């Protein structure tokens, strides 16, 4: 789309292409080659008022949950806008190479690719308006019980044309990002997120090195190690801070989820085939190298994740992929006042009713935003949300009393039970802060060390993330505390498990002043009704 040829300061209301012209974005049409005029007419996308089209449903996030919710709602006759930051659907789990890379076997990098292929087929057959390259920074309530979704556009949000999409109902399917816990050397080039290494592999077909240690905690590590090894990397070790024995304490949740065991078995077999050694109750406690990773030290941990002195083992590698589970991405919902709950591994997730609605009426959520549970659960919750939104907007209450809905609710309960077992098994132990040195950077953006945070806590009385931030700038940088938030919360609360943070970030992504200035006059809407 020749964005530069349009007035860069013109606010664009619900960019709507003529149906079938492919997605509209800040990047240029992905399919279809007709020029897409962001200010052009929209065909049949519901009532159009002075501010552009009003969709029945706006879905934020085109991963498993959002895609599933969008196709379900569209197939039931709703007009749907589907927004995502990426040029492609699939979210993080089904992240895949851009078409120009010509990958004929994208499924080689994925588990259960056919499930995504089917969702994508349904989306392409639907009249969903896909808005790609949209980085949503806020959702607000407008007059007439409408939701306005505000986004900046472009590959990394640098596009000058902001987008506003209005809808009668909202489905937040914003997924999760990786939880990180700092350790000495974790800012050295070559140390990358475990999910990050996998994302770069899935989309760019690249590796950060040839010998990659995978470390942290959680089931993602096995999947990452298996795909790195399959892609030609040597994986000297997978280093898991917890054990796997805790799963065995919940035989019913395991027995009810055979597909999860099958998935683990696939990864396990792959690791065996590549001779990858899994070290449990261990962590990387130091990274060596001057300007990039040359080796790591792996230490044994006790049950509370306290490193045992003198157990360090030197492992040579040229990269380290690390992550400690996933954090639900719930800023947009938190900004609307949606209630949150604490999960078994200490993250904050949205409180949802049995039909996936948040505590704010008219706002639904699905997938990881309601607690990390994996791609299959996300798909089913997306479908439930799609059914529930259609039932509400069209008055067809039979949709939520159907046998299909009962089946989905049963499966959700089963998979949520497994997710809780998994979260508890990999919840960080309180002893991990012992592996920090005083000069270890905790906040990567603002380069705030553990020593300075401890000083703020012990010397100046900070007891929470916000006080630490005000005293030290930890969490005040570009990422807004996404990378250091979990660690700062632990350090601030001492040995106790930290209270859940509200994840309140008034702007969910950075927004330029020119994008803000180009918004038209704000119209005060009623406050969202609480329940």
């Amino acid at each position: 789309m020749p964005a530069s040829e349009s007035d860069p300061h013109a606010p664009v209301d619900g960019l709507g292409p003529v149906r079938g012209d492919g997605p509209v974005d800040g990047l240029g049409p992905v399919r279809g080659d007709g020029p897409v005029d962001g200010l052009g007419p929209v065909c049949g996308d519901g009532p159009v008022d002075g501010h552009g089209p009003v969709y029945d449903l706006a879905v934020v996030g085109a991963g498993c949950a959002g895609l599933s919710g969008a196709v379900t709602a569209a197939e039931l006759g709703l007009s749907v806008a589907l927004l995502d930051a990426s040029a492609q659907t699939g979210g993080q789990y089904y992240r895949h190479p851009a078409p120009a890379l010509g990958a004929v076997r994208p499924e080689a990098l994925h588990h259960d690719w056919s499930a995504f292929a089917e969702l994508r087929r349904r989306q392409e057959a639907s009249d969903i308006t896909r808005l790609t390259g949209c980085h949503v920074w806020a959702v607000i309530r407008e007059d007439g019980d409408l939701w306005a979704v505000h986004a900046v556009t472009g590959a990394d949000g640098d596009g000058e044309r902001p987008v506003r999409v209005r809808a009668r109902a909202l489905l937040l399917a914003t997924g999760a990002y990786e939880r990180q816990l700092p350790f000495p050397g974790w800012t050295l080039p070559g140390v990358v997120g475990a999910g990050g290494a996998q994302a770069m592999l899935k989309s760019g077909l690249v590796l950060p090195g040839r010998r990659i240690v995978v470390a942290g905690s959680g089931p993602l590590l096995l999947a990452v190690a298996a795909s790195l090894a399959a892609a030609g990397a040597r994986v000297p070790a997978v280093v898991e801070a917890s054990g796997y024995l805790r799963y065995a304490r919940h035989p019913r949740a395991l027995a009810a989820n055979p597909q999860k065991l099958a998935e683990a078995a696939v990864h396990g077999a792959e690791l065996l085939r590549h001779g990858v050694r899994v070290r449990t109750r261990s962590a990387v406690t130091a990274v060596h190298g001057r300007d990039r990773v040359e080796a790591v030290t792996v230490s044994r941990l006790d049950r509370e994740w306290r490193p045992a002195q003198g157990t360090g083992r030197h492992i040579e590698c040229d990269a380290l992929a690390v992550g400690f589970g996933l954090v639900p991405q719930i800023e947009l919902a938190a900004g609307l006042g949606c209630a949150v709950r604490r999960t078994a591994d200490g993250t904050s997730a949205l409180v949802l009713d049995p039909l996936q609605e948040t505590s704010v009426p008219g706002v639904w959520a699905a997938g990881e935003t309601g607690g990390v549970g994996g791609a299959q659960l996300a798909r089913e919750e997306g479908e439930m949300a799609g059914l529930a939104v259609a039932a509400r907007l069209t008055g067809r209450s039979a949709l939520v009393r159907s046998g299909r809905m009962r089946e989905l609710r049963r499966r959700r309960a089963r998979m949520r039970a497994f997710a809780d077992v998994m979260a508890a098994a990999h919840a960080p132990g309180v002893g991990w802060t012992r592996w920090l040195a005083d000069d270890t950077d905790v906040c990567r953006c603002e380069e705030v060390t553990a020593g300075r945070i401890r000083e703020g806590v012990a010397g100046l009385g900070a007891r929470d993330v916000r006080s630490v931030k005000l005293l030290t700038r930890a969490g005040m940088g570009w990422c807004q505390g996404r990378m250091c938030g979990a660690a700062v919360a632990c350090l601030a609360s001492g040995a106790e498990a930290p209270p859940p943070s509200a994840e309140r970030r008034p702007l969910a992504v950075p927004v330029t002043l020119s994008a803000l200035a180009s918004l038209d006059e704000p119209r005060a809407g009623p406050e969202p009704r609480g329940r």
Partner: protein
Amino acid sequence: MARDPVELAGARPGPPFEITFDGRAVAALPGQSVAAALWAAGILAWRTTRVGGRPRGAFCGIGQCYDCLATVNGTPNRRACLVPASPGDTITTQEGHGHAGLGV
């Protein structure tokens, strides 16, 4: 076992094109991000931090951590893991906040 990710995914991209990193020629495949092209060339750092002047590159890989900020065609603070590489792109190591040229 595949020798590399391109073989694993059965990728048949178009011909590689050239971008530059701090004046050095780097080959990029169509469809790769700037960060992916740099990783493929063995380059892991393209930013120095504001305070300590330490090298950084891609970390989260999904646009959340902002560690991969680079100066792309003269514009600082571009997330290299999200920005697609284009033929002739000039990537330069971003020093500090990237606005030294503004004298701020």
